[in-house]
């Protein structure tokens, strides 16, 4: 889509224009990729390179991170050989191509979508890709991040470019003030419940409004992370002083004068006043309650004060069948109050909710309380772990009876062997409640870190608000 120089543009239009190398008559545009993150799953792509006898074209813009398969209990246990092989393959592919690796034993290791921003590898205005759908996370800093498949990973490795058709533009505005105990996860799940898990397909989303502006960088990362669960191509928040303050002194970000000059450019990355969006959604932040999922798609989400839906009351037969199927898998009864659903386990972690602020929110609820169920707390990076330990958060989790482990994708995706047992019900800070996502037969309820902590304290899905009020 061509613009006259004076036509008002959205933030996304500006990012698109600044990365377009050539646009063909058929509308396909070749885009320059500023950063490419690769993890253990990239072996298919590296095999394609080997078949062609090719090497990584821009190793200085490519970064390897071990996260999907890494064990979360690093010491004194032997690693499954098949899992060790995944980590070894990544190490070999990185060293053969001179790509920097944040490997298993690197003190900066962590989940790619936590490490990128934390290290200042993620910057406003960058086009960032990774063979992982949650690459939308990086949009929190005003970057354009999206997930790609193995064929596209191979294409980026060989050319540092990607062909794309321009997505449509959507703005989601959340105004108003969030109530205490309500966070980015509740905003995101409310949006997905309203739009559907495919509601933003084919769209680049910009989040705006006063409730978004007041979110910390951690909150924005959670929000943008979940854009893909609404089907969006990417989600982003325009850079502001929160962004600049977050990035100052990050190891890979520009330093000194270079930083100040970059910050001037970054702060200009805003949608123009009269820019047009293909779709606009508006939410009132003050109406958002703590949200939990009850089904097998993130769109199956409701405020904790509600009850499980009754398929008998749904006139659309396809939708009713879908709900019935979800309730069978989740072992829930139609009309059952959500607060009457008992849980077997909790998990706090993943690229969605494992940053320091997430751990603080959970620890605030768990402090001087016990968890009624077992559970795992896996910080988003080794540096987050270090900081949490310096703040004494690890003691709170351990004294509550939860296990404090190392960083990785862990029980969000179960690839490293951290799984929820068949039939078990887990209150989880992760991003997907798909059937079998956390392990075969596992039942997942998604919610915020504070809500997971509340569920741990009572052993049931629980409204965290009274637990927070007791504290203040």
């Amino acid at each position, binding site marked *: 889509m061509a613009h006259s120089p004076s036509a008002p543009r959205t933030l996304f239009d500006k990012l698109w224009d600044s990365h377009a190398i050539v646009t063909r008559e058929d509308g*396909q545009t070749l885009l320059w990729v500023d950063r490419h993150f690769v993890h253990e799953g990239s072996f*298919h792509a590296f095999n394609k390179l080997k078949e062609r006898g090719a090497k990584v074209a821009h190793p200085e813009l490519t970064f390897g991170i071990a996260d999907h398969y890494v064990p979360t209990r690093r010491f004194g246990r032997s690693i499954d050989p098949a899992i060790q092989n995944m980590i070894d393959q990544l190490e070999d592919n990185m060293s053969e191509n001179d790509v920097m690796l944040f490997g298993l034993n690197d003190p900066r290791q962590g989940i790619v979508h936590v490490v990128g921003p934390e290290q200042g590898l993620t910057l406003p205005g960058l086009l960032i890709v990774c063979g992982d759908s949650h690459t939308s996370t990086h949009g929190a800093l005003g970057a354009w991040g999206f997930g790609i498949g193995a064929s596209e990973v191979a294409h980026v490795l060989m050319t540092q470019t990607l062909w794309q058709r321009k997505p449509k533009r959507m703005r989601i505005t959340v105004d108003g003030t969030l109530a205490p105990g309500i966070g980015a996860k509740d905003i995101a799940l409310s949006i997905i419940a309203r739009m559907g898990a495919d509601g933003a*397909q084919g769209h680049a989303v910009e989040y705006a409004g006063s409730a978004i502006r007041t979110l910390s960088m951690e909150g924005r990362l959670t929000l943008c992370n979940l854009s893909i669960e609404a089907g969006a191509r990417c989600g982003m928040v325009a850079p502001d002083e929160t962004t600049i303050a977050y990035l100052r002194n990050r190891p890979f970000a520009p330093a000194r004068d270079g930083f100040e000059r970059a910050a001037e450019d970054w702060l200009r990355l805003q949608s123009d006043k009269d820019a047009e969006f293909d779709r606009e959604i508006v939410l009132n932040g003050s109406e958002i309650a703590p949200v939990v999922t009850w089904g097998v798609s993130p769109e199956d989400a409701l405020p904790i004060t509600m009850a499980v839906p009754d398929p008998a009351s749904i006139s659309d037969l396809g939708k009713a069948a879908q709900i019935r199927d979800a309730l069978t898998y989740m072992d829930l009864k139609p009309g059952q109050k959500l607060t009457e659903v008992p849980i077997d386990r909790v998990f706090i972690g993943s690229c969605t909710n494992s940053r320091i602020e997430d751990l603080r929110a959970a620890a605030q609820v768990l402090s001087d309380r016990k968890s009624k169920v077992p559970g795992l707390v896996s910080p988003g990076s080794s540096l987050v772990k270090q900081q949490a330990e310096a703040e004494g958060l690890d003691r709170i989790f351990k004294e509550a009876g939860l296990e404090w482990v190392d960083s990785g994708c862990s029980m969000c995706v179960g690839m490293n062997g951290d799984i929820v047992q068949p039939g078990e019900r887990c209150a989880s800070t992760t991003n*997907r409640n*798909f059937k079998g996502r956390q392990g075969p037969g596992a039942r997942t309820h998604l919610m915020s870190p504070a809500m997971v902590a509340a569920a741990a304290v009572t052993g049931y899905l629980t409204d965290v608000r009274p637990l927070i009020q007791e504290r203040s």
Partner: protein
Amino acid sequence: MQPFQRLTAAACPLPYANIDTDQLIPARFMKRSRAEGYGGYLLHDMRFTGDGTEIADFRLNQSTYRNSQIIMARRNFGAGSSREAAVYALVDYGIRCVIAPSFGDIFASNSVNNGLLPAKVDERDGEALLRFLEETHAELTVDLEAQTISAKGMSFPFAIDPVWRTKLLNGWDDIDITLSQADAIARFRAEDSVRRPWTTPRVP
């Protein structure tokens, strides 16, 4: 890549919405080498019980549908994880076309890169096709040139990005096309490093 032009084959109705890529191939199989083929892992936990026994009433396990090359599903097929292994599982099983009212964006793109056609139909046509397949067990003909799905005198249009259509019809791979743009890429890179000097990561 094998071109896709026209296919007449058995079609398996899977009347579910949100068949995500975790269901198409559970994560635990993704450590395996592709050389062994991923077809056995397709929809594994819908096809098999915990001890590996086939679930008899799952459609793909029934003789009518076992050799299907087309899957007909409800909305948001292939949502979720970007794992291209989900497409490998479909392709290695023998599926060449998935028909649904909507697809996960990353899945659809991965499909095209592996010669698998994601044919997008109107929601109402999708329901009609599901009913038709359940009642008749007939084969479908998918014609990519004409963008139609037909059987027994019925015909429905489907949508696909025109660029993807061309790629599939010809079995083209992007990389060679891109490599022919090497000069434009180099020029862009040179200008861009002046325009946005901060994009190069500082090595701490």
